[in-house]
């Protein structure tokens, strides 16, 4: 071992002084990656990231054999030249269940790039806070395949999430999937050719607006699923969205909940509480416009004591539901019901009629389930609470929309406003 005491030169001190003062004023380091070697360098910078780093990606297509990951470092921005211009391609991926996996980052902006052909989920953002996902594209380029990744844009267990101007296509589950999160804004996105276009699941306090879903099997979903750490979703405002022609095939492998979605579904709400759905356009679906269901209708068991399998306080009003025209799907069990018990007719609005015990008032109206002012629509209540077999449904179904004609007071979703104000 050699030990030497360096002679300190005045010039060195000067340089150091400049260096330190530069660090102080420019806390947020801007890192501009070159085209050459980007596939290696991007992961290196994600590993060695310092708080406040802004990583800029040039235009071009970059191949990755391994999934990319970022953990723990706060206030990180990854910005490309724009979706479709900066393309991170995982076509040759041999490792990693995601294209890009981000975990436990407070302050995250992902903007302006495409993630293509990841073997699993495209971009997973797990346990993060203050997340902006903007102008991103996720896609699988070989078309609708059951071997495509499940989720496209996938924030989960995260708080304060803004997703805007993104595009997601060809996911074999949901193009945009927000799971078990809190304070979420999803707006101005386009989702197409996925199994499910956009899905909000077990999420609390969200606004979903100005999104377009086309050519998926199911356009948009708001689900609560059982046995998850965040047991129930709550308070979602859902407005000014367009669901159009979501008649694509359901190419999800059997066993996934999403594989039970009948092609030709505009919007499905399941087991959720406090949804206000208004001013949406739902058109040209071959099976159903909007469905309001209970988890119990799936027949899949669950265990959680906390989980509420029923829809409560669902207010669907002032939507335009048109051209729900059939013939309905015959590839899923749910779709087949339309043929076996509904004479092959598609419906603008359908409910399984499985409501929380005790919510029926004296006149048989389900308190808190309100379908109001949606125009002249076709409607069926399967009344499956009285029995979920096809014969029982055929016997018990009715078309009485009037018992649902009520209004609900608006609820407050403004919890995210302070954070959002800084990210407009």
């Amino acid at each position, binding site marked *: 071992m050699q030990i030497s005491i360096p002679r300190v030169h005045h010039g060195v001190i000067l340089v150091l002084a400049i260096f330190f003062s530069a660090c102080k004023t420019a806390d947020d380091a801007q890192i501009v990656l070159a085209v050459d070697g980007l596939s290696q360098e991007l992961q290196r910078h994600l*590993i060695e990231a310092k708080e406040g780093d802004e990583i800029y990606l040039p235009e071009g297509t970059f191949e990755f054999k391994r999934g990319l990951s970022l953990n723990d470092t706060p206030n990180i921005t990854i910005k490309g030249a724009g979706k479709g211009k900066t393309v991170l391609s995982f076509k040759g991926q041999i490792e990693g269940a995601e294209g890009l996996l981000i975990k436990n980052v407070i302050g995250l902006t992902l903007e302006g790039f495409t993630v293509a052909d990841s073997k699993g989920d495209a971009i997973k953002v797990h346990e993060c806070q203050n997340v902006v996902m903007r102008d991103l594209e996720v896609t699988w380029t070989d078309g609708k395949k059951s071997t495509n990744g499940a989720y496209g844009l996938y924030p989960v267990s995260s708080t304060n999430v803004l997703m805007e101007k993104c595009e997601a296509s060809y996911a074999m*589950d949901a193009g945009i999937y927000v799971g078990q999160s809190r304070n979420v804004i999803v707006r101005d996105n386009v989702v197409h050719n996925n199994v499910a276009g956009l899905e909000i699941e077990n999420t609390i306090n969200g606004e979903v607006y100005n999104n377009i879903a086309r050519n998926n099997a199911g356009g948009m979903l708001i689900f609560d699923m059982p*046995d998850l750490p965040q047991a129930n979703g709550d308070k979602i405002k859902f407005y000014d969205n367009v669901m159009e022609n979501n008649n694509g095939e359901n190419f999800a*492998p059997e*066993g996934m909940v999403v594989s039970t979605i009948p092609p030709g579904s505009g919007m499905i709400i399941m087991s959720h509480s406090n949804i206000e759905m208004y001013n949406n356009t739902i058109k040209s679906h071959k099976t159903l416009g909007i469905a309001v269901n209970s988890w119990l209708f799936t027949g899949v068991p669950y265990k959680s004591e906390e989980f509420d399998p029923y829809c409560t306080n669902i207010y669907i009003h002032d939507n335009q539901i048109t051209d729900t025209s059939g013939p309905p799907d015959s590839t899923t069990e749910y779709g087949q019901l339309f043929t076996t018990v509904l004479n092959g007719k598609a419906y603008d609005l359908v409910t399984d009629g499985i409501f929380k015990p005790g919510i029926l008032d004296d006149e048989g109206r389900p308190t808190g389930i309100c379908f109001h002012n949606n125009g002249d629509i076709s409607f069926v209540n399967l009344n499956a609470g009285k029995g979920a077999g096809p014969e029982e449904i055929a016997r018990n179904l009715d078309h009485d929309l009037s018992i649902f004609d009520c209004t609900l007071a608006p609820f407050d979703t403004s919890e995210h406003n302070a954070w959002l104000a800084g990210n407009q």
Partner: protein
Amino acid sequence: MARRQSIGGLESMGLLLNLPEKVRFVFMSGSNWIYLLFLIPGVSVLFQQCKTFNPEGVLIPEQPFEKLSEYHFFVGLLSDLKPNDRVLPYDLNTPLFSDYAEKARFVWMPEETSALYTTDHVLDFPLGTALIKNFYYPIDERDPSLGRRILETRLLINRGEEWDAYGYIWNEEETDAYYDVLGDIKEVKWTNAAGEEMHLDYIIPNKNQCKSCHAYDNRQMPIGPKVRNLNKEFTYVDGTYNQLDRWMEAGYLNQVPSNNAHPSVAQWNRPETHELHDRAMAYLDINCGHCHNPKGAANTSGLTLLAEAPMDYSLGIYKATVSAGAGTGGHTYNIVPGQPEKSIMIYRMQSDNPGAMMPEVGRRLIHKEGVQLIAEWIANMDMELLKPEKVKTLN
């Protein structure tokens, strides 16, 4: 700097002398009399002389050394992995499967320190503890004398708040291993115990990936060295002893309960001494439990795969999947008692598609023997007994 161990005035002395950071840390980790030498004028001459008889104490720097050899974990030829003084080899009752790689594990703790005995989680190791794990493939599993190829060495160093993970990649000559945050892909070939020629693009993980397994509550932690996993015999150079006894002897364990009734997890591949159920649970615990626990990376799945997990829904029995993606293989439940072929768990263990397989990282090959064990366990589950008493459905 915040993570630095308390070292009294030594650090400031290093600063005063204007020594590079690495060297200052040498002071801290070496023995005390070396520090004293530095207080005497003309120290460097003396130090040069001292070096010949005590340079080899283990050194733990704040930033990773460039080369593995600089830590002095091993003496003699590095690739012999002959441990230095106070560096103890150990192994586990049931290890994580890593593409059939074999692992040589070692532990080192700073002088005068020891780990606190606990059975709740991994041992409470003292600050500065190093866990050293070398990954290698024998040339031929049937004949160890043919040698081995060492690919990588992973270090976990306890910094207090969490552990740092450093990866070292061995050069082709196996003269040393070099720090590398990016990991690598290495082509390996070997002959397995059945005489089959095996080959693989072995993946050395990058630094961020360490955390995909080693995160507990988002803090990086060791997984293996729990009492129940260490409680086994190990053949040391001087004979075969129980590892816990040897750790105590070495002063590496304190507050050990005197009753000698230490828990022990089954050895997954020893049917002659361990029950099928215990072996299966031990296997799931080490291979899955680091993510599938309430504070692990896979907590969003609602699945708990720990050795102590109850035999119920949370273990996956009749549990429908939420976000398994391609991983369902067309099946509905994670485990269907009596029917491994209909169980998602088996499907995902049998897959080598990155989008479907489990575990998600750390393997590319299918662990046939592991699949066989879990399939046998599921096949032998009593279908009636295990039906969850509180399954809720409409009908």
